C-alpha cells in the first residue's frame, strides 16, 4: 500500500520518479516551452566558447521533475512551498532519479504540514539538486 499525505510518517519515502535520458532535442524543446533561450543549453558552439565541454541541461527541467514528484503525490493545491538548490550541472544524456522523504511534521499558517527532503541524482550518484517542500495535509476528507 502506497503512502499518502494522510498516512505518511517521518522517514517514509515517496514513489521515486525517473526522467530521461535527456536528449539535445529535449533541451531544445524545453528552451522553447519555457522561454529560457540561454544558448548555453542548446548551442554547443556557444557553450565551448564559454569554456564548457558541451551544452548542459536547464536546472529548471530537473526542478520541474521534483515538482511532478511532489504534486503527483500530494496534489498541486496542497503544496505550500517548493525549493531547490542546484549543486551540480546535468550533462546531456543524463537520466534523473528524483526522490523524496518525509522529514518533519509541523504546523504552518495554522495548518498541519509535512516537510519533504527532495533530491535529484544522476546514474553515477552525483546529486544535482537538493530540495525541500512543504505539503499541507488535507483535512476532513
Amino acid at each position, binding site marked *: 500500500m502506497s503512502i499518502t499525505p494522510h498516512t505518511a510518517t517521518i522517514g517514509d519515502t515517496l514513489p521515486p520518479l525517473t*526522467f530521461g535520458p535527456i536528449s539535445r532535442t529535449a533541451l531544445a524543446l524545453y528552451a522553447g*516551452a*519555457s522561454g529560457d533561450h540561454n*544558448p*548555453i543549453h542548446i548551442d554547443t558552439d556557444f557553450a565551448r566558447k564559454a569554456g564548457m565541454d558541451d551544452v548542459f541541461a536547464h536546472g529548471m527541467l530537473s526542478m520541474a521533475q521534483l515538482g511532478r514528484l511532489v504534486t503527483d503525490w500530494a496534489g498541486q493545491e496542497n503544496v505550500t512551498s517548493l525549493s*531547490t*538548490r542546484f549543486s551540480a550541472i546535468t550533462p546531456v544524456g543524463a537520466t534523473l532519479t528524483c526522490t523524496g522523504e518525509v522529514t518533519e511534521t509541523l504546523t504552518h499558517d495554522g495548518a498541519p504540514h509535512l516537510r519533504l527532503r527532495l533530491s535529484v541524482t544522476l546514474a553515477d550518484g552525483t546529486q544535482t539538486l537538493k530540495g525541500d517542500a512543504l505539503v499541507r495535509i488535507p483535512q476532513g476528507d
Partner: protein
Amino acid sequence: MGLFNRSAAGQTTPPMSVTLERGAMTFFAETIGETNPIHFDIAAARAAGHPDIMATATYAVVVGTMAGKALLRRGDPDQLALIGADTRYLLHGTESYAYHGAMFAGDTVTVETEVAGFADAKGGKLEIATLIQRITHPDRGLLVEARRDLIHRLDQGAA
C-alpha cells in the same frame, strides 16, 4: 571584480501583465513529461473542479520569463538585463516558490521582480544575485512568490 550591475540592488522591474495561454501551458506540461491531465486536458481540469488547466509547479519561472520578454520588447530591462547578467558565465543557484494560489489558463497576472541584493562566494570565484519575483492576480491577490539566486562563475576566463 564581479560582472553584475550591483547598483541595481533594491530596484524592481516595472509591473508587467502576462496572460496564461492554454496551448503554451500544454506544450510546457508535455515537455516536462507531466502525466496529470489537469495540467493539459481541459476536460480533466474541469472535472476536477478547476476553471481551466492548472499551471504546473514550476510554471512560475515561465510566467516570469514571459514578463521579461514583454519588458524587453517595449524597451525596458528584464530581470537579467537589470542585474547585468552575462549568459556565458551564468548559473542558476537556487529557486524557491511559495504558493498562495493556483494559476490557470486564461488568467492575466502581473509580474514584478525585485533585486534583493548581491553577494560574493568561494573567495571571489562566484558572485550571487538574489531576485524576488511576485506573481499577482487582480482578484485573487498574490499567487506565487519566487525567489532565485543567479550566479556568475568568475574563474572561467571572464573579463
